[in-house]
């Protein structure tokens, strides 16, 4: 009886879709121990089976070159799942079989799921599955995960799993390849060629390729990777995504949410008064928690829409094209087009962005990408930009935000050039990337992705930011001698803020509240807005008049300088932890924080001083 299974296959083979179909809502998303590659587990539950499924990272082979391959190989060797479910992409069947052969060579029980059958049926391709099954001695289940076809057959085959006989021909192959490996005198690439020559024979025997290959992908690429319009189209798509999520959705949701929050905090206040709560408790709840957490949740709709677009681009196959188009640009700074993906994911959150750097092929690209990715403003910095842009440049919010991204981009280019010359002299990068066919994203997958990512955002609002808001409220309610005070200027917080404030004077904002906001921003970037909301909420009377109080504290120039500092300075503590893990070195991590913060300081000083010359 099968109790555990590991799901493996090439990138883009449809593994996620199959995993979702198999495990439904029983999924658990975590990390592999010690590393930050996403680990998903779930349970197959049906009539008479209950199987724990672990989703292994998408890989082309198991030779321990990349972290993903190492994880997969070690999992298969050490955890010994009862069966390996190998997903094959029927549209790239030759390449898919390469991993299958390697897996069979390990001698572990294996079942093959041949996915994308709907696509090849349209092409007119015919596969003799029975012949192949008899040849290889593995069960091959045809599947079209997209339309949920074949999933229950896969489950049936898992519950009745038994190992089959190999054909004599395939036994010979296994024997030969084991001899090669044992003798060790055959180079890695010769062994790979040997595998492919066997695959060629297998395909010619059991597959008749159809003639009706769809040319949709080629047609779409005529535009998206076109010599003249490819790059403008890319820029337009990026612009549209930010315009829609920030301006359009932002305007719709901000009003509604703010009113909801206002009336919620009023009725909660009344309720607390009615039940006779202590006035300090009321102030803690309303001024501390509701204000702090609320100010962050206000941005949830915008961030969800942004996550939605990111997922769509990831799922459709366009992302690989962007790497293709931009490789030439990234090469200049010692990276490859693939570094675009970590950086783009980093525009949602730096943590998965830094994690995504694992898919890069060389150590140097990985290090450099990890150091540079935090320059891409993450979703949590968005509320800060939106708030400041709305306070000072309400007509041009999205332009201001685009400018902040552009400044991040300039920092990346500048730093890349610098590092290429100084730190990573003479390294050669590797760029080798599959361009998968375009596929219409599956809404179910996209929504699950949006849900998982938003959950992190909301969880953070409920935990770190909740605790942070309480702490801020507390620190600003007591004097350094632990005496209650109503005057913020007497509070502990103002002493702390005033202590750091001189550091920021050259940047144009020496207010103690702003300094405190920076400190809390180190815990989580959302805390910057939460802190300003809690602190300014106190000095103002009632209502959410955050924007007014920002206008009172900043000038347009110091607001810009502030935003630039936020855009470039050290990321939050979770991103630092991820960077430490991924760089696997304290030295590099500390170096990258000091570098980022130093650059931020210089840039924002420039903005403030040059800006002040023009605008007085």
């Amino acid at each position, binding site marked *: 009886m099968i109790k555990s299974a590991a799901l493996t296959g090439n990138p883009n083979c449809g593994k996620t879709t199959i995993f979702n179909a198999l495990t439904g809502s029983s999924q658990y998303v975590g990390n592999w121990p010690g590393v930050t590659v996403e680990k998903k587990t779930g349970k197959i539950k049906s009539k008479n089976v209950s199987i724990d499924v672990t989703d292994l990272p998408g890989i082309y082979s198991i030779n321990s070159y990349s972290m993903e391959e190492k994880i997969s190989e070690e999992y298969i060797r050490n955890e010994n799942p009862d069966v390996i479910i190998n997903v094959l992409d029927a549209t790239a069947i030759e390449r898919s079989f*390469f991993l299958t052969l390697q897996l069979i060579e390990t001698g572990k029980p294996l079942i093959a799921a041949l996915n994308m059958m709907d696509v090849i049926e349209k092409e007119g391709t015919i596969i003799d599955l029975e012949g192949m099954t008899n040849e290889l001695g593995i069960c091959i289940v045809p599947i079209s995960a997209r339309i949920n076809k074949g999933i229950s057959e896969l489950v049936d085959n898992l519950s009745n799993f038994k190992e089959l006989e190999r054909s004599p021909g395939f036994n010979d192959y296994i024997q030969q390849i084991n001899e090669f490996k044992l003798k060790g005198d055959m180079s890695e690439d010769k062994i790979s060629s040997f595998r492919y020559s066997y695959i060629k024979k297998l395909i010619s025997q059991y597959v008749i390729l159809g003639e009706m290959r769809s040319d949709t992908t080629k047609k779409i*690429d005529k535009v998206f*990777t076109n010599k003249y319009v490819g790059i403008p189209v890319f820029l337009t798509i990026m612009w549209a995504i930010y315009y829609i999520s920030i301006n359009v959705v932002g305007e719709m949701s901000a009003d509604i949410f703010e009113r909801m929050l206002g009336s919620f905090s009023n009725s909660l206040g009344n309720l607390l008064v009615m039940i006779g709560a202590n006035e300090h408790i009321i102030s803690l709840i309303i001024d501390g928690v509701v204000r702090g957490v609320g100010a962050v949740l206000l941005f949830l709709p915008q961030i969800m829409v942004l996550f939605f677009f990111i997922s769509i681009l990831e799922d459709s196959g366009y992302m690989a094209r962007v790497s293709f*188009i931009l490789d030439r640009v990234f090469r200049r700074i010692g990276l490859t087009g693939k570094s675009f993906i970590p950086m783009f994911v980093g525009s949602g959150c730096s943590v998965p962005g830094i994690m995504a750097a694992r898919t890069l092929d060389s150590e140097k690209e990985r290090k450099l990408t990890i150091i540079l990715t935090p320059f891409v403003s993450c979703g949590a910095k968005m509320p800060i930009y939106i708030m400041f842009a709305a306070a000072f440049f309400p007509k041009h919010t999205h332009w201001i935000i685009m400018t902040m991204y552009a400044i991040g981009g300039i920092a990346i280019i500048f730093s890349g050039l610098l590092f290429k010359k100084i730190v990573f002299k003479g390294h050669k990068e590797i760029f080798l990337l*599959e361009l998968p066919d375009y596929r219409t994203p599956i809404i179910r997958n996209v929504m699950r992705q949006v849900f998982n990512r938003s959950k992190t955002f909301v969880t953070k609002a409920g935990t770190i930011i909740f605790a942070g808001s309480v702490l801020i409220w507390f620190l600003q309610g007591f004097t350094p001698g632990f005496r209650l005070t109503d005057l913020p200027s007497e509070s502990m917080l103002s002493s702390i803020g005033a202590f750091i404030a001189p550091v920021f004077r050259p940047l144009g904002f020496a207010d103690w509240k702003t300094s405190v906001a920076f400190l809390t921003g180190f815990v989580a970037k959302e805390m910057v807005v939460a802190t300003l909301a809690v602190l300014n909420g106190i000095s103002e009377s009632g209502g959410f008049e955050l924007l007014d109080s920002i206008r009172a504290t900043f000038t347009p120039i110091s607001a810009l300088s502030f935003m630039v500092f936020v855009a470039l300075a050290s990321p939050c503590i979770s991103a630092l932890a991820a960077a430490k893990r991924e760089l696997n070195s304290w030295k590099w991590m500390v170096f990258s924080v000091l570098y980022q913060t130093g650059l931020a300081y210089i840039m924002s000083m420039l903005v403030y001083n040059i800006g002040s010359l023009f605008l007085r």
Partner: protein
Amino acid sequence: MNRLSDLKPGEKGVIKSIDIDGAIKIRMTQLGITEGETVQVEKYAPLGDPIEISIRGYSLCFRKTEAERIILV
């Protein structure tokens, strides 16, 4: 000598040898770029580099520096 980088979009050739060393060579063979296999150049990126090829029924891209070292029959 006929190199992969000499082909224009749409043209095909058969791989004779791959004069590349190290990790990238191993990666390439794992992805199915092997001697005797037919490749077709699909296109070049808007900025002239990298190159997209199709091989074994799927598309792959890499840089021209690599394409120059893939010798065709």
